[in-house]
């Protein structure tokens, strides 16, 4: 017996009340717990960072929120204008830090390309790439990452990655998130602010972040909100249409890459519902009609969620100590 029948309505919230609740938490954390003066938010031009910045402005005031625009060579051409537009819409101070020269200097692009060349020998200048996973709902097949390469003449190939190539590509691209975090803490230290993370619930729960990259933060104000709720919050906060309409993207690889072809098993609207249903004890057969799948397919997504949670344990874990030390005693 469940108190309610399963439907997308279960994700509905009172957004005014929720914005107040988040605002109160932010003030408590920043001013009282950490004794800092404001919040740094990296703006990607996507929905999550935009909502975090807007919530922060609502509760802290625009003079206590600092935005960072940090595109790089592989970023979409929309990223900079959208993130700048959002900063101007909110009226906050911001800085544009082009991280491409740093990424060049540490060999991010070179190391990534070398890893790709393990499996695609003729990968070279003018080529673009992304890594993708096959869909999870179709069958019980284990999913192995592939690299999609687009040559300068427009031809595309898809090649399965071996372990060193996969790990090499991920390790190299992780420089991007970690370089951005370095700038966020530079500005936070300079201003005596704290740094906000911007994961939504799907990302936080399923480990869709880089440890000590975008995963590092002092506060994560929307980590409890499903992506559907983040979009609804954006509407409540009156964010620009261009931000609200932008489909979720990783914005990390040179070819456009949706989040579900890289990480999640379903588009976010359906993924939200399956995760909500799983978290709240609804059986697969009740969730299935709401997401247009059969019960067997929902069970596969359940398994995928559990697998990702196991991987996410490491990502969330602080360093292991041999015994409690200092403030942990």
């Amino acid at each position, binding site marked *: 017996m469940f108190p309610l029948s399963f439907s997308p309505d279960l994700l509905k919230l009172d957004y005014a009340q929720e914005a107040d609740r988040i605002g109160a938490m932010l003030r408590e954390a920043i001013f009282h717990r950490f004794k800092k003066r404001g919040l740094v938010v990296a703006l990607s031009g996507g929905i999550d960072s935009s909502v975090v910045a807007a919530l922060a402005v609502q509760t802290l005031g625009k003079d206590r929120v600092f935005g960072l625009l940090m595109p790089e060579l592989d970023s979409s051409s929309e990223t900079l204008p959208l993130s700048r537009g959002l900063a101007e819409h909110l009226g906050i101070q911001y800085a544009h830090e082009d991280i491409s020269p740093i990424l060049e200097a540490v060999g991010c692009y070179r190391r990534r390309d070398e890893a790709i060349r393990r499996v695609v020998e003729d990968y070279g200048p003018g080529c673009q790439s992304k890594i993708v996973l096959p869909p999870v709902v179709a069958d*019980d*097949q284990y999913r192995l990452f592939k690299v999609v390469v687009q040559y300068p003449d427009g031809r595309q190939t898809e090649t399965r990655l071996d*372990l060193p190539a996969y790990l090499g590509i991920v390790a190299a691209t992780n420089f991007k998130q970690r370089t951005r975090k370095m700038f966020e803490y530079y500005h936070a230290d300079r201003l005596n602010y704290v740094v906000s993370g911007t994961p939504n619930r799907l990302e936080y729960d399923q480990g869709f972040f880089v440890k000590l990259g975008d995963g590092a933060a002092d506060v994560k104000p929307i980590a409890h909100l499903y992506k559907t709720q983040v979009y609804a919050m954006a509407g409540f906060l009156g964010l620009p249409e261009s931000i609200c309409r932008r489909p979720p993207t990783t914005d990390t690889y040179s070819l456009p890459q949706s989040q579900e072809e890289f990480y999640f098993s379903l588009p976010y609207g359906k993924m939200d519902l399956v995760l909500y249903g799983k978290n709240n004890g609804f059986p697969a057969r009740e969730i299935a009609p709401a997401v247009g799948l059969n019960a067997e397919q929902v069970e596969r997504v359940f398994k995928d969620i559990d697998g990702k949670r196991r991987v996410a344990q490491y990502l969330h874990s602080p360093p292991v100590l041999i015994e409690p030390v200092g403030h942990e005693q």
Partner: protein
Amino acid sequence: MTTIHSLAVEMRSFVITTFLFGEAGDLQDDTSFMGGGIIDSTGILELVMFIEETYAIRVQPEEMLPENFDSVNRVAAFISRKLSKPAS
């Protein structure tokens, strides 16, 4: 001659060395790798790479199924079937 039994011995040794840091614990030849938390998605990639390099076979995407890869016995049987067929 390579038998399913000898393949299982080799696979068991690989799994214990690579994923269990030399501690076999209660690993049985029919223990589920995924269910037992022995191998994760990166581990599967490592397992496939080992099989392809060691036995000079190519694993096709449609063969990437739990019935072929989720225990020592299943992997051994899968390799045995692949070795008995012409390369695909």
